[in-house]
């Protein structure tokens, strides 16, 4: 989905290998905090015990993991964790047996930090072929990357050569016999389709069983500012469900639907505190600083705009143009010289409005009203004024100001500031003039006021 956060090439820990009676410890202190870190380990033989790992690490489950009779459970494993500042190393254990081993970590920017992995598939290739195909993965959306891991052990040093659709991140070989042989590769970009399987060839003749793992990487959400058009390619799916974080609205669309989605800056999401809750910087900023900034109107939507042009002929009803933005805060969309203010944060909005007109000649029984219109036709607020002749007015200029309004608006709604009336007779023009030290101008100021 265009507009989602993009995954990018991983930061790598550097390989760690050795021989140990039961565990390996990988230094991960250099891995970026707040990013998902994947760590893999491969042994030089099949272990007698299942792997264990430090607390907080999540195993990337594979269908063969729990079957003690199969090699996959005891020759290699992969784990992930959202890396924090206190995570400096990770220890993976295999129960007191002495093995050569290799370990490496991969930290991908842009992954979803809660559910970074989907579609895990595992298998064992027992054919003895040097060219093997990974288990097939079917990503749920076309913005996923695919990771392929092949792992075996050997009496000779072996290297991997993967197909062109993959980028090799780690090809572990070496140490002392017996040698682990680990390939870690990914597609280095989003893929589309289902049942995706990738080929790799191992050197050195007929191999032992090759343990395989493949899974998709899930990108994290992104807060977009400004209105954007998002194309949802769901060719493999009949329907799609979209979540909009700020409003918790769930929109369902069908295949083939054209969709225009506007993302917003999120409203402050206030939590309820519990005993023992941590108050790290991210939490304090999200729960304390950000709501304060919103309540002080530093970050909630607010827009002031005015018309500074030479005037234009008006007919009723006239959606007024504004060519100069004098204040814009938060996410509220307006294009200067346009008439429409687009809403991207739902809520109750308040504002003030003045419209000014100039009459080129006396207009009998003419009247004017200022209106706030939503989505073109809904008149949310109206103030009426009347004029019968031009005499007594200051050079035919009128300012109809002081219109205060409040209106509830949803994402995608647009507001226009309109003047309407009767008997204008082609004599009415928009105004921006100063007469007798009075500024006759057209402007509005509006702001988010409440949920």
């Amino acid at each position, binding site marked *: 989905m265009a507009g989602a956060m993009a995954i990018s090439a991983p930061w790598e820990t550097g390989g760690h290998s050795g021989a140990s009676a039961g565990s390996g410890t990988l230094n991960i202190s250099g891995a970026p905090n707040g990013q998902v870190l994947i760590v893999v380990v491969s042994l030089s033989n099949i272990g007698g015990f299942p792997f264990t790992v430090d607390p907080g690490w999540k195993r990337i489950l594979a269908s063969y993991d729990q079957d003690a009779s199969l090699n996959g459970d005891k020759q290699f494993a992969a784990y992930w964790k959202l890396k924090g500042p206190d995570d400096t190393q990770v220890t993976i254990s295999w129960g007191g047996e002495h093995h050569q081993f290799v370990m490496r970590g991969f930290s991908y920017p842009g992954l979803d930090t809660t559910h970074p992995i989907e579609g895990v598939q595992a298998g064992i290739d027992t054919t003895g072929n040097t060219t093997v195909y990974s288990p097939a993965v079917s990503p749920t959306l076309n913005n996923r990357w695919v990771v392929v891991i092949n792992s075996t052990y050997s009496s000779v040093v072996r290297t991997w050569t993967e197909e062109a659709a993959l980028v090799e991140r780690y090809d572990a070989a070496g140490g002392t016999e017996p040698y682990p042989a680990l390939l870690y590769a990914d597609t280095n970009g989003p893929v589309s389709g289902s049942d995706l399987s990738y080929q790799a060839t191992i050197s050195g003749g007929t191999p032992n069983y090759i343990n395989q793992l493949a899974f998709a990487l899930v990108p994290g959400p992104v807060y977009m500012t400004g209105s954007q058009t998002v194309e949802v390619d769901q060719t493999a799916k009949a329907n799609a469900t979209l979540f909009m974080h700020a409003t918790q609205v769930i929109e369902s669309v069908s295949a083939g639907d054209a969709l225009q989605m506007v993302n917003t800056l999120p409203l402050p999401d206030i939590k309820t505190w519990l005993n023992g809750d941590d108050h790290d910087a991210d939490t304090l900023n999200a729960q304390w600083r950000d709501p304060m900034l919103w309540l002080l*109107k530093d970050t909630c939507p607010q827009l*002031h705009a005015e018309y500074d042009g030479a005037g234009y002929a008006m007919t009723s009803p006239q959606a007024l143009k504004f060519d100069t933005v004098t204040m814009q*805060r938060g996410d509220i969309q307006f294009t200067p010289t346009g008439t429409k203010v687009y809403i991207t944060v739902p809520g109750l909005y308040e504002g003030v409005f003045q419209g000014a007109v100039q009459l080129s000649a006396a207009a009998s029984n003419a009247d004017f009203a200022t209106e706030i219109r939503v989505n073109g036709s809904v008149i949310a607020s109206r103030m009426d004024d009347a*004029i*019968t002749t031009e005499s*007594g007015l200051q050079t035919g200029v009128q300012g109809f100001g002081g219109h205060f309004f409040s209106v509830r608006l949803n994402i995608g709604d647009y507001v226009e500031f309109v003047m309407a009336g009767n008997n204008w007779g082609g004599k009415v023009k928009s105004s921006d003039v100063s007469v007798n030290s*009075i500024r006759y*101008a057209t402007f509005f100021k509006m702001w988010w006021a409440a949920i």
Partner: protein
Amino acid sequence: MSTFVVPTPKTWVDNEIPSYADLEAELYDPVQFILNPPAVKLRQTTNQTLNNGQWSYLSWDGAELDTHGAFNSAGNKTQVTPQVPGWYLGWCGVAFNTSGSFMAGQRDIEARINDTDSMIMHKNIPPSAFSGSTSVKPAGLSFLAAFNGTTDYLQIRVYQASGGTMTTIANRTDYQPQLYLKWHCRL
């Protein structure tokens, strides 16, 4: 220089633990400011003469509310000078007498900053609004205006072209000229 400061929430950094001083500065002060923002409400309680064909600056006789000293009753009583910088949401109202000789002509009501040609808010009330009417005609403005918290002041002025001399109607609370300002957001 204004002695009142609009709170600015700090950005917390990793491993920072709020101290007692933080709780005062970052929680108590901003919440108090939000719950009790700078505001002033003024009334006119003595009728004021409105001469024909002239602008008259409304003079205020007292404050119902003045949290931060925006109104100086010993100084120029047509001016209100917010002491905390920011944008202020305001409204003002005045009533025009439409009986007898006061039926004709237009009326204007305007909010002005520093008595200049500033685009705060202006409202024309055409003569037809008074035709055939024998009752008092209230009129008002709502506006949003920016003040620097030191020298910027607000005035409300009215214009009438009835042909004769009028007064405001300050002896009834529902017709008394009023002005209200409340802090809205920082500049």
